[in-house]
């Protein structure tokens, strides 16, 4: 119990001491999570809608593949992306490895299937008469897409929130592609892993409390938006 209380106390000290290194770490986490979530949502939502609304050859194969990719351990995604981004790999010339951009790339691959799958589920649970109405009223495919996503906005928003939560709490990809570089790619999760391995349990747990508060704040904002608009 003593240990938990001390960590909590340390977390509060860290936040209010304005330690620039902690702020940098928190900021890197938010920055890469934000962009990878935006990217995966902007690909995943249209793709999810397409999969939910259209029937085509090989559709079940695509769905199966997407569902499988949700079960991939992050270290495997990290390794796969390392092979792509390493100087030995096909995308090596860009020099993305061990940069925030490289991390965003890997986290996008983690989050895109989540956003896609949950969008498929969100749209499939809508009243089928909505699609029929759209067609009857002569909506173009683009109009139909926006109408349907608007109708399913709560569930789609939830998909984005879940993708964000997955990305910000992830450690394998961040470690493998970011390299945990101080002042550049160190995120809250890799910092926690580092402090834990150094035996600084209080500091690790303190960072954990900060991570929780950041996630709480971001989810709070989204929750407020949903209530305000709903």
């Amino acid at each position: 119990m003593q240990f938990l209380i001390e960590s909590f106390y340390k977390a509060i000290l860290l936040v209010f001491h304005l330690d620039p290194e902690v702020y940098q770490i928190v900021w890197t986490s938010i920055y890469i999570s934000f962009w990878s979530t935006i990217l995966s949502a902007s690909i995943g939502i249209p793709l999810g809608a397409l999969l939910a609304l259209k029937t085509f050859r090989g559709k079940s194969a695509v769905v199966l593949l997407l569902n499988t990719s949700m079960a991939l351990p992050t270290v495997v995604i990290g390794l796969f992306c390392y092979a792509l981004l390493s100087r030995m790999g096909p995308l090596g010339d860009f020099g993305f490895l061990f940069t925030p951009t490289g991390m965003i790339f890997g986290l996008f691959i983690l989050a895109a299937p989540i956003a896609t799958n949950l969008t498929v589920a969100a749209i499939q649970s809508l009243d089928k008469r909505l699609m029929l109405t759209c067609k009857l009223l002569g909506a173009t495919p683009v109009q139909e897409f926006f109408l349907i996503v608007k109708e399913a906005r709560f569930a789609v928003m939830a998909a984005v929130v879940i993708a964000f939560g997955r990305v910000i709490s992830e450690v394998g990809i961040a470690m493998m592609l970011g390299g945990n570089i101080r002042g550049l790619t160190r995120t809250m999760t890799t910092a926690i892993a580092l402090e834990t391995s150094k035996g600084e349990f209080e500091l690790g747990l303190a960072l954990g409390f900060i991570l929780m508060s950041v996630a709480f704040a971001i989810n709070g904002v989204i929750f407020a938006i949903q209530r305000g608009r709903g």
Partner: protein
Amino acid sequence: MKNFFRLICIFLLLLSFTSIGFSETRLKMSTTTSTEDSGLLKVLLPPFEKANNVRVDVISVGTGKALKLGENGDVDVVLVHSRPAEDKFIADGYGVDRCDVMYNDYIILGPKNDPAKIKETKSAVDALKKIAETKSLFVSRGDDSGTDKKEKAIWKATGIVPQIPWYIEAGQGMGTVLQMANEKNAYTIADRGTFIPFENKIGLIILVEGDKTLFNPYGVIAVNPKKHPGVQYELAKKFVEFVTGPEGQKIIADYKLDGKQLFFPDAKK
């Protein structure tokens, strides 16, 4: 509410752009956890960064992985501690300009009651033999790091193949292994630099030290630009010159943790 949402989006967008600052040159270095965790790099790197207007990106992993990153050309320079692996790295053509930088030493740690009575032995080989004879718990890094390679080499010298279940391969970093050994009241081998910050936190004590086989030299190697044209060889060379030069060597000699010197400079001029 809609405006509020837009405001947040714009705010986040603006903030995002501020942190994209890739204008300065960056030198990528892979190194072992011991140099980073001990805090040495925090004092060693800034003077070099200032003098050359460059940022050094440190990727601290086990020696095995650090060299692998060099092999793949993903870093410009490596700072590691495992002479046989370093020599192979150079022989295979991946590295050039290897220089000695500094050394510290390994120590054999164990519980205070010392069930295998290794404190009486003076050599590392005899100590491990006694641990094997009494089948006392021993935690190994098992992660192909410099420390792991060293430990394996000493086991080889004893002529004993360590056996499960008294021999535990953790596959983790030095800090984690120290904690595991502490929780399990087991023996382990650690580099002194990593152990000093742990000394007051765990119950393990130093039982064997000062043996020549426990000597732990660090070397710095530039990644061969002929293998990987993308690496920043000129800058890597400057870095090698800096850490082996008078300024770098003095910083290493002056670095103390809890009043104890961690690394001893030994660059040859």
